[in-house]
């Protein structure tokens, strides 16, 4: 069948029209390609992305019975989807269309009109050559499940569950321990507002009262398979491993929180269990449970030393919240009795929230002695430190409080294997992108929020819960189908040697090994189409649809003519 290729050059007002000779471009492209098998239908238009431009293209495709189409205009980043949607209104498969960028990559960078015209011709010729090697791809629609599994019943998980649950979206929340609320329930006061535990308790009640949320306590995830929109999950009871529950969801949120590092692992911290040394969390628990801070003898302390930032140098990251809560703890003592002498030792102060400075001023006003130091060591309840001016001092206290580094929850490593999502250099879950998508992961449909992603306070944990919830609401709309990526890889069975290189390089785990056939197989629902596996295959057995070697070579050959 003779190919009828429409080549449409957009003027973009003066943007393109003034910079290149459009008529010459069309003339040249038609002359260069017209043959027995190919007919080029070339034309120009003032503004292809306008309503009139879209109708023009639609009519051209229909009336001229185009088999392929090339649009030479702006960057595909601006309007590729515009023209794909035009194709979708016609019989022309959108994968038989190609957009060529003659504005940003041509008209706007080359001042000389002749040179710019030739460059445009070169790019369009590449497009015409390539489009003939493109093949139809059919987009399939998949039904999706809008439901969500939340792993971890701390404040992050609770907020995510409440925000997502609704008539059309059920949420299952699993909590490994026997209680909800995570670490927040141990905190006597909550910075910044000192709202206290009432807030956490209210949210726990909101969660358990919500009929669209099912809570499983003492429960862990055992297995998960699937992809965004369709996950199959097995849960198991911690107290009775044989007790299993199977559920199906469309997305999973990991909110497994944090742990605290054992401070005695650091060489400068030495004490015994009989010494009056407490971690920050132990202090919070003591105050919450007993209402008063006391030594083990039952008498209140008279002289308290607080050490910030234990182990920061060893861990190589700042735990973000300790400066903040250590000042809160210093004030607990001062509130109990202004006579308690409180000395707080810090190397650097991290005050990231807008009212932290106020807390700092208040702490000083309350008479807490904030001492900036270079080095510090603890022996029993004796603290030795060097001030920043170099003077070395040693003080004996009757109670010492240390702020241990925030570390990933102990279940993190195991969970990363079950979920097949990577960890970062510190052992927290690795986000999809630190600045642009901190709640996403390498697997579409699996999200990380709260301290599971890294140390942070309650308000930031809640923000992340809402961020993940927002993404899930737009990605999984109840009743709507999703169109999985079609530009995916496929393994050509006949050539695969079974070397598994491709499996090693794919960071999405989209390729599995078929032991019986001895070959690798791509799971199209997971593949993102990066093409890494293609470049890794020694036998050329993988094809990336729409970016095949053949298609790319056409452009190379054309470029080098």
């Amino acid at each position, binding site marked *: 069948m003779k190919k009828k290729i429409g080549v449409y050059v957009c003027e973009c007002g003066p943007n393109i029209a003034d910079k290149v000779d459009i008529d010459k471009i069309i003339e040249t492209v038609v002359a260069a390609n017209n043959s027995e098998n190919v007919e080029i239908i070339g034309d120009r238009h003032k503004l292809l992305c306008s309503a009139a431009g879209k109708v023009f293209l639609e009519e051209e495709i229909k009336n001229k019975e185009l088999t392929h189409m090339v649009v030479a205009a702006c960057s595909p*980043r601006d309007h590729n989807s515009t023209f794909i949607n035009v194709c979708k209104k016609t019989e022309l498969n959108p994968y038989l269309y190609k957009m060529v960028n003659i504005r940003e990559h041509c008209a706007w*960078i080359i001042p000389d009109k002749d040179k710019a015209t030739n460059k445009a011709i070169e790019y369009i010729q590449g497009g015409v050559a390539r489009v003939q090697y493109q093949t139809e791809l059919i987009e399939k629609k998949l039904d999706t499940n809008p439901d969500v599994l939340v792993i971890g019943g701390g404040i992050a998980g609770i907020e995510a569950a409440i925000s997502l649950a609704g008539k059309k979206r059920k949420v299952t929340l699993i909590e490994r321990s026997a209680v909800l609320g995570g670490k927040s329930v141990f905190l006597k006061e909550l910075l910044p507002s000192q709202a206290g535990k009432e807030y956490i308790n209210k949210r726990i009640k909101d969660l358990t009262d919500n009929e669209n949320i099912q809570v499983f306590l003492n429960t862990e995830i055992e297995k998960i398979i699937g992809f965004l929109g369709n996950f199959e999950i097995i849960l198991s009871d911690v107290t009775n491993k044989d007790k299993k529950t199977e559920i199906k969801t469309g997305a999973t949120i990991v909110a497994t929180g944090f742990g605290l590092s054992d401070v005695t692992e650091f060489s400068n911290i030495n004490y015994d269990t009989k010494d009056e040394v407490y971690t920050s969390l132990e202090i919070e628990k003591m105050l919450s449970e007993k209402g008063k801070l006391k030594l083990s003898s039952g008498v209140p302390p008279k002289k308290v030393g607080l050490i910030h930032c234990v182990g920061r140098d060893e861990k190589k990251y700042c735990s973000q919240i300790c400066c903040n809560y250590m000042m809160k703890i210093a004030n607990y003592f001062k509130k109990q009795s202004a006579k308690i002498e409180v000395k707080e030792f810090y190397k650097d102060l991290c005050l990231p929230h807008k009212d932290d400075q106020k807390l700092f001023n208040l702490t000083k006003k309350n008479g807490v002695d904030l001492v900036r130091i270079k080095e510090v060591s603890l022996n029993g309840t004796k603290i030795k430190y060097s001030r920043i001016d170099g003077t070395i001092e040693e003080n004996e206290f009757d109670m010492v409080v240390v702020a241990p580094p925030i570390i990933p929850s102990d279940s993190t490593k195991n969970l990363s294997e079950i979920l097949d999502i990577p960890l970062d250099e510190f052992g927290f879950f690795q986000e999809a*992108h630190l600045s642009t998508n901190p709640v996403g992961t390498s697997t579409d449909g699996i999200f990380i929020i709260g301290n599971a992603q890294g140390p942070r306070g309650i308000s930031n944990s809640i923000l992340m819960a809402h961020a993940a919830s927002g993404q899930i609401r737009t990605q999984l709309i109840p009743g709507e189908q999703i169109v999985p990526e079609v530009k995916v890889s496929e393994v050509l069975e006949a050539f695969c040697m079974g070397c598994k290189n491709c499996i090693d390089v794919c960071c999405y785990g989209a390729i599995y090994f078929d032991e019986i056939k001895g070959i690798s197989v791509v799971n199209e629902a997971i593949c993102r189409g990066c093409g890494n596996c293609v470049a890794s295959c020694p036998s050329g057995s993988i094809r990336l649809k729409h970016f095949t070697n053949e298609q790319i070579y056409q452009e190379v050959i054309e470029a080098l003519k």
Partner: protein
Amino acid sequence: MEKEFIPRITSFVCKWCTYTGADLAGTSRLQYPTSIILLKVLCSSRIDPVFLIKSYLKGADGVLIGGCHPGDCHYETGNYHTRRRFKILTEIFSTLGLPKERLRLSWISASEGPKFAQVSNEFTDKIENLGPNNARENMFL
């Protein structure tokens, strides 16, 4: 009269960073030479070393690879693979006595329009100094 030598540089770039950087060079009306021929892939990790060899043998005077900065690849670790493959390829070029100076890898982010223009200019100058690639005439492969 000898014809003016305009190098041909096949430039394989990833959609997310370097292609967008090139767009920005355009929107900022920066100038860079017509020698740069952009070929878009989704990720630099799609760039099979064979593309470079093929370009070279077909007569490309230079080959440029552009991707996101290490750590910024939109497919996680894709560009680390690109970097390794590029290293291996340049070693092979050296071993075979082929001019590895004709190959270049640059990390150019979406916001680095000026860097894209600068790399294009620099690399074109370099290739102009090296002169045309006569592999097409010399090689029988």
